């Protein structure tokens, strides 16, 4: 599907990131090279504490790195001043977290509308589009519920709708199924594949849940601060 002549949506080169100083300093990322292409769902796997979240944060431009370059859609992130980077992130990226991170005081629809409100889209228009998005993730009858009245799987669907409402080119998911049971995790991954993946978008999913490996197009392994292996995953029925 992706040949290497196509330009990468995300191009990371030589990324080094350390935390702390002096004796307590640990280098979590020790020179990461990684390309992610439009249209694919890339799985990033590795053991817990291995630096997967750190790498995601770096790609999202919400964590400063010590060395290396990251281009997103041809834009060098590190060259952007902080406020431009924030705006760029709001316009091009969507996030899905293990802990959902919905605002507890807002209804499902209001939560989904937040990225649009941040872009200064009017409230009624934002809510209209948010309801449409909730419809697509299978929650048409839960739009006015508060997060606490939704199940974990439903909350994660709301989070997916929120991540997608802005039509982001880059969808960043950190262990999106880790807080869910097996069947719910499967449904969330199905949704991410169906609704999230599109030809002009790339999806990165961090996981260590082998039950969802088959949802990816490629799988990158992060070991000891480096990408040690990238393999293409054979899709059932498409081999």
């Amino acid at each position, binding site marked *: 599907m992706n040949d290497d002549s196509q330009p990468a949506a995300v191009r990371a080169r030589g990324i080094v990131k350390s935390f702390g100083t002096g004796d307590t300093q640990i280098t979590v990322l020790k020179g990461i090279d990684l390309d992610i292409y439009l249209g694919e769902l890339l799985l990033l796997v590795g053991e817990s504490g291995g630096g997967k979240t750190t790498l995601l944060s770096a790609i999202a431009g919400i964590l400063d790195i010590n060395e290396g370059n990251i281009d997103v859609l041809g834009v060098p992130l590190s060259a952007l001043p902080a406020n431009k980077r*924030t705006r760029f992130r709001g316009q091009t990226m969507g*996030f899905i977290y293990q802990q959902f991170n919905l*605002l*507890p005081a*807002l209804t499902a629809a209001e939560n989904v509308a*937040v990225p649009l*409100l*941040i872009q200064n889209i009017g409230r009624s228009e934002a809510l209209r589009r948010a309801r449409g998005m909730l419809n697509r993730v299978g929650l048409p009858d839960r739009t006015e519920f508060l997060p606490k009245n939704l199940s974990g799987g439903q909350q994660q669907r709301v989070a997916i709708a929120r991540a997608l409402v802005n039509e982001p080119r880059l969808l960043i998911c950190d262990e999106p199924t880790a807080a869910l049971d097996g069947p719910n995790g499967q449904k969330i991954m199905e949704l991410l594949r169906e609704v999230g993946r599109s030809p002009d978008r790339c999806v990165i999913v961090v996981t260590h849940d082998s039950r969802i490996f088959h949802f990816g197009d490629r799988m990158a392994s992060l070991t000891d601060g480096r990408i040690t292996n990238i393999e293409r995953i054979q899709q059932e029925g498409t081999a």
Partner: protein
Amino acid sequence: MNYVALKMLFGDRAKYLMLLCGLTFAVMLIVQQGSIFWGLMMWSQASITNLNVPIWVTDPGIAQVDEVKPLADTAVDRVRSLDGVEWAVPLYKGLLRARLATGEYHQITLTGLESATLIGRPAEVQEGRFEDILQPDAVVLDQWAVERMGGPTVVRVGTIFELNDKLARVVAIAKTQKSFTNIPVVYTTYEGAMRYVPRERRILSYVLAKHKDGVPVEDVVQRIRTQTGLGAFTQEDFGFKTYMWVLVNTGIGINFGTTILLGFIVGMAIAGQTFYLFTIENLRQFGALKAMGASSFTLARMILLQAFTVGLTGYGVGIGLATVFGFLTAQGGNLPFAETWQLLLLVLVALLAICLVSASVSIIKLARLEPAIVFR
């Protein structure tokens, strides 16, 4: 995003109420303490404000109203003769001992008003007619005198007692602002006072005067000073002088001032702290917003909106409660409580300032916040 900010604020009822309680308590504490302080200060000027005349002429070395330094009898005429003076009348004010029929002694302040005009008489009379003071041996008490001397069963209109072994007959009860020393006030005429007071060389305590309409009172005060060599003050200045004296020379300034300052600091610390905690607890939510592309400027605006909303609400509720408290405790003027607009304005400004400060601290914290925390 204002909408989101307000929803975040009101959405968590428990947290919001905590926050509101903290701010309300702070405002209440300050307003209540400040009002009591101010009330005490008003009491310290009561012997001036109860007479309510524009100009007080005094001994040039006067320190405060209750420490009388007598003037020469000629002072009244000298003041009368000056340009811009509409009228000037004598006033006697001095401490005397009253002996009740029961044999009890009470120290009282005798106030002698000029009989022709009765200038300086209390504005309100509770019982009887003030004009009856012109009858022989007649005196008028204020309600605090009745209270201090044993209540209405012991002292009332018609009661006869002795002032310096001379008869005094109560013909009316006046209603006045309670004074700081709470020494009972007995009104008589200036001539009456001369009868009661033991023979001294000088009996004139103060000259009360008024400026002519159209002449600025400050000019007349200045003229009295330069042309007579006496002290002269507007009512406000003399009141100010008196309460500054009380502040500096009695424990009240230090004691109450410290309490109020502490109340103020504690109140403001509580207000700032509660709001800061509120933001810290919401850090993760703000981090999520930042990850979704909300600029630091947007987050700052949200926090300011939250701070001022809860600040103004706490202000309103706190003032309401303090007022109710004051109304209940100070009913009848028995406790000092004066809630002035200056105090309310001061508290408002201080509260807004503290909201601004704690919001700024939160904003700086957020600006430094790595939105990466949302992944944790």
